[in-house]
């Protein structure tokens, strides 16, 4: 049997359920100092001076570290990791604010003390002399001429401008039977993992090695940024990501606080820990926030799309830590699962005095799906067609795979949908949802004054982005099978997944494979856990490395057993002679041989150690796809929306563990429900954040979450040996689109059209009021 494809229980869970998980805050080092951060209360201000003397006078405060106190290598901005020629002004945040602050919550100083209580008392006594400056808050206003500059001295707030597209869009519009235009405001809030950011830095005085424990999604990136800034050698810095309570994109980034905490450890020669609290998370951890789409669609008389064009404005926040990645993904995802003969999208990124925006689960794709699906619904409405039929007429048909869209993706490779059957996936979702029978139900309850609606959200997702991820598989003389994988886990169950993959190759159960993840000391190079890329990249690496170990085990056994390799088989942790299972060698025995004996030469052709390290490098992204169907009831008197049913059909290629994929999809949908109806990070005109706790910033709870009914398709991709595609974000991508479509459908008697998410009760009541 194959472990890949089985519902293997997560190896991570027993420890987590018993409270034996080890998160950064569970690590206590002797002499450790606790840090609290002095953060800007202003969205935009000059810093005229800092007086830390009162804080330093508190017993238990060891140091106050400001920009001026940092070693020279740390007195610089963080590097722009993903440059792009479209960026006009690559402004990056300093490790600690130098002479100005550009968002509420920007880190200015660390107070280091014996405990967090004392450190926070110290923060209260650090006197910062601010000279407040006008702030750019709403990105639409900030983009206009004459708006307050987010960065003093700049003529405008345009951070970057670029366009993507192909074909002759304007010609397509000139010959179109119908053209429909929409202006769509989309807000996505932030990621909000259960565990806020956490980090602990310690330089070992014996070896000089700096170790940083951080709940990061990208331990190697954190190491590399640190080394790039300070000139430290790779092997002097080790980053370990222990148990981590969620990330959803927010923990991919190397933050100024990471580098500042490391600097503080160097300065004090003591371990320094910083644990972010939730309010700080609302202020200082990256968000995704606002986009404004102005889009047009051209169709022929049958609703076949001729072209799409428009413009997209994106709120970048105060800095560009990941360049223009999010809006770039948005713009290149817009064509979605459809044949769009001509496409052009102009993108404008706007600086505001708010915390930077970087990818959150879906990474700009939910907005693209929302824009495209709203246009599809509009076409259906205007032409009197069923929304499912309009989509059916425009899907990329299965026989056109692989399908080259005509765009270049963020990694520079062409956007090519490698595999999948989009119409069949839609049909699967419609059948599961009982789409054809819904209209009768809708009509009957409408007679009772109830408003039910059904909506469809189709999507594609470029997953498994390169360049690589690494895995080492090793067998010890004791027979233990070890797998070290560079990428880190935030709760997804990566260790279970890798154990399944390795177990299949080595003929053992997953319980026999011990997996280590998230340690830059375990695998030399790594990229990170994001872009639904770990199964594709690291999974394939584990598969390849375990396969090499298998080959090597058979080769060595062939030598030991004096049998031809083709006469040997591997199973149950042994290599044995086919047909004579009693004659064989265990993997441990083979490993002991491969590890050599003192003074004896290795046999010809046999290399040292029963192990292999592989770095799988995909040639380009593989495209997952799916279709969601939402059924909602709208209370037209209160503006309340209740999701009655939610059905997903998706195709992430080969499924490694159905149970974990279902967990990912369900969690993703809940994230999307938050985007559709609840999550709104509000700021006032001065750039002051208003929703800085979960009382005001609403996450969906169990009461807002219907049972997520899931159907799976498996179209293996030819682009990696496992045939897998990413599954971590697809649940989120079409959710807001499907829910908005369902609300529209429910309110057809009023002629209401949703052009904003999240959909708040007052927004709905206003739309209904204007139409009735």
């Amino acid at each position, binding site marked *: 049997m194959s472990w890949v494809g089985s519902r293997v229980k997560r190896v991570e869970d027993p420890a987590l359920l018993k409270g034996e998980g080890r998160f950064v805050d569970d690590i206590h080092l002797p002499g450790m100092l606790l840090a609290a951060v002095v953060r800007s209360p202003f969205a935009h201000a000059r810093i005229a001076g800092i007086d830390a003397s009162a804080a330093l006078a508190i017993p238990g405060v060891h140091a106050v570290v400001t920009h001026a106190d940092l070693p020279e290598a740390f007195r610089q901005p963080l590097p722009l990791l993903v440059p792009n020629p479209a960026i006009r002004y690559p402004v990056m945040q300093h490790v600690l604010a130098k002479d100005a602050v550009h968002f509420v919550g920007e880190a200015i100083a660390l107070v280091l003390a014996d405990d967090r209580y004392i450190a*926070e008392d110290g923060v209260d006594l650090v006197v910062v002399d601010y000279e407040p400056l006008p702030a750019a808050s709403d990105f639409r206003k900030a983009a206009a001429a004459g708006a307050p500059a987010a960065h003093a001295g700049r003529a405008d707030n345009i951070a970057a401008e670029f366009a993507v597209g192909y074909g002759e869009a304007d010609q397509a519009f000139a010959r179109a039977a119908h053209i429909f235009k929409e202006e769509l405001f989309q807000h996505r809030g932030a990621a909000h993992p259960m565990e806020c950011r956490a980090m602990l830095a310690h330089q070992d005085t014996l070896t000089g090695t700096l170790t940083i424990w951080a709940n990061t999604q990208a331990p190697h990136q954190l190491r590399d940024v640190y080394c790039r800034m300070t000139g430290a050698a790779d092997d002097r810095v080790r980053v370990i990501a222990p148990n981590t309570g969620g990330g959803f994109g927010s923990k991919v980034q190397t933050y100024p606080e990471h580098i500042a905490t490391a600097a503080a450890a160097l300065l004090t020669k003591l371990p320094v820990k910083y644990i972010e609290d939730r309010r700080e998370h609302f202020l200082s951890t990256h968000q995704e926030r606002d986009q404004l789409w102005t889009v047009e669609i051209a169709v022929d008389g049958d609703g076949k799309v001729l072209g799409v064009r428009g413009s997209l404005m994106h709120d970048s926040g105060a800095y560009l830590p990941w360049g223009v990645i999010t809006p770039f993904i948005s713009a290149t995802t817009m064509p979605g699962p459809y044949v769009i003969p001509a496409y052009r999208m102009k993108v404008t990124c706007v600086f505001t005095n708010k915390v930077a925006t970087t990818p959150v689960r879906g990474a700009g794709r939910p907005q693209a799906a929302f824009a495209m699906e709203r246009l599809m619904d509009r076409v259906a409405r205007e032409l009197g067609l069923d929304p499912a039929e309009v989509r059916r007429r425009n899907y990329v048909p299965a026989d056109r795979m692989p399908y080259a869209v005509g765009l270049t993706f963020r990694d520079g490779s062409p956007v090519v949908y490698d595999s999948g059957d989009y119409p069949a996936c839609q049909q699967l979702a419609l059948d599961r949802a009982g789409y054809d029978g819904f209209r009768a139900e809708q009509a009957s309850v409408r007679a009772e004054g109830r408003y039910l609606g059904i909506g469809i959200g189709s999507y594609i997702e470029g997953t498994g982005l390169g360049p690589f991820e690494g895995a080492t598989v090793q067998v010890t003389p004791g027979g233990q099978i070890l797998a070290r994988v560079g990428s880190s886990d935030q709760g997804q169950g990566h260790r279970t997944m890798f154990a399944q993959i390795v177990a299949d190759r080595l003929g053992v159960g997953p319980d026999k494979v011990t997996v280590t993840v998230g340690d830059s000391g375990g695998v030399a190079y790594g990229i990170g856990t994001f872009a639904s890329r770990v199964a594709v990249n690291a999974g394939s690496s584990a598969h390849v490395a375990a396969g090499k170990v298998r080959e090597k085990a058979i080769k060595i056994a062939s030598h030991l057993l004096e049998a031809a390799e083709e006469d040997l088989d591997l199973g149950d942790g042994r290599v044995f002679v086919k047909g004579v299972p009693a004659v064989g060698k265990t993997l441990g025995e083979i490993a002991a041989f491969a590890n050599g004996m003192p003074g004896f030469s290795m046999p010809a052709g046999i290399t040292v150690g029963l192990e292999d390290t592989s770095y799988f490098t995909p040639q380009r992204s593989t495209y997952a796809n799916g279709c969601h169907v939402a059924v909602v009831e709208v209370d037209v008197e*209160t*503006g309340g929306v209740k999701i009655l049913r939610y059905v997903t059909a998706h195709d992430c290629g080969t499924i490694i563990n159905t149970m974990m994929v279902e967990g990912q999809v369900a969690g993703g949908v809940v994230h999307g429900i938050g985007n559709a109806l609840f999550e709104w990070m509000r700021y006032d005109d001065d750039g*002051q954040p*208003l*929703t800085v706790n979960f009382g*005001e910033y609403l996450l*969906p*709870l169990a*009461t807002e979450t219907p049972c997520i009914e899931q159907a799976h398709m498996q179209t293996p991709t030819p682009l990696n040996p496992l045939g897998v595609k990413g599954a971590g974000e697809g649940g989120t991508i079409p959710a807001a689109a499907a829910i908005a479509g369902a609300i529209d459908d429910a309110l057809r008697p009023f002629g209401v059209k949703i052009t904003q998410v999240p959909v708040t009760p007052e927004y709905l009541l206003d739309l209904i009021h204007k139409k009735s």
Partner: protein
Amino acid sequence: MHPFTLDRPRDLAAALALRAQAGRNDAPAEYIAGGTDMVQLLQEYVRQPERLVSLAGLLDNRIEIGPQGLRLGVAATMAEVAADPAVVEQFPLISEALLNSASPQVRNQATMGGNLLQRTRCPYFRDVGYAACNKRAPGSGCAAIGGENRWHAVLGTSDDCIATNPSDLAVALVALDAAVEIRGAGGSRSLPLVDFHRLPAATPHIETVLEPGEVIAAITVPASSAARRSHYLKVRDRASFEFAVVSAAVALEMDGARIRQARIALGGVGTKPWRVPRVEAALAGASLEPQSLRQAAALAAENAHGRGHNDFKIELMQRAIVRAVEIAGARA
């Protein structure tokens, strides 16, 4: 959180004396009971007392029902009251309002007294990053009036404050003509709950009529046949663990198909729990026909004043009244 001293007095008299020493505003001493609201306020630096006086174990937590009605010891938890069989049977409005509040964890910890005294959810009040909040810093102004005010009140507001009272329980109790027993060093007094919270006027930082050194000892609710035919309708952004956008507590005495007497209070729209006597008067003798309910409900909006983002509440609260009356009226 600012450092403070925690006092754990042995009896109520000592607790009252400790608090009475302090002044009324910017009190250097504050009471803490369940702590579900106070601890948040401390953590966010909204309250910065020098001393916290614990009331744990000093106050009555009994739930008693007799021919006169209901008496709730002020230290009874939200969960205890909500689940009390006699409350569920005879005062379902109270149980409904409580179960629609907060989360199970909070309800296990929070007390009756703390619920009535919880502070507003106005984000400007709760974030010391804003200088302007007359409730937190008297005389500093009101950032909500010209700011993001979709959460704010449309009734009972002043030019100095438009914050809502967030309690669901208080809305239900006001509808049921509840009273509070207040105890101080000088003795006890009782007054209708509807008179307990003050309008903000020019002093929004003074939210109740409690004098320094006084505590609520108990809540009493008179027996009434209306108490059973009731409904607490809570319109909110999320179906659990969320404060009301608008709520309506309705208790009806019916005379056949007609309303003999209606008692109605609103939440989420007033600067205090908001009774609507004009609506009640219009409903007396009315049928449950939608038209007459709408006409009566419209009277709730007579002095309502939106500030932009919260304008929608004026219509929404009328609809909430209509629906709550319909639901209560349909109950046996």
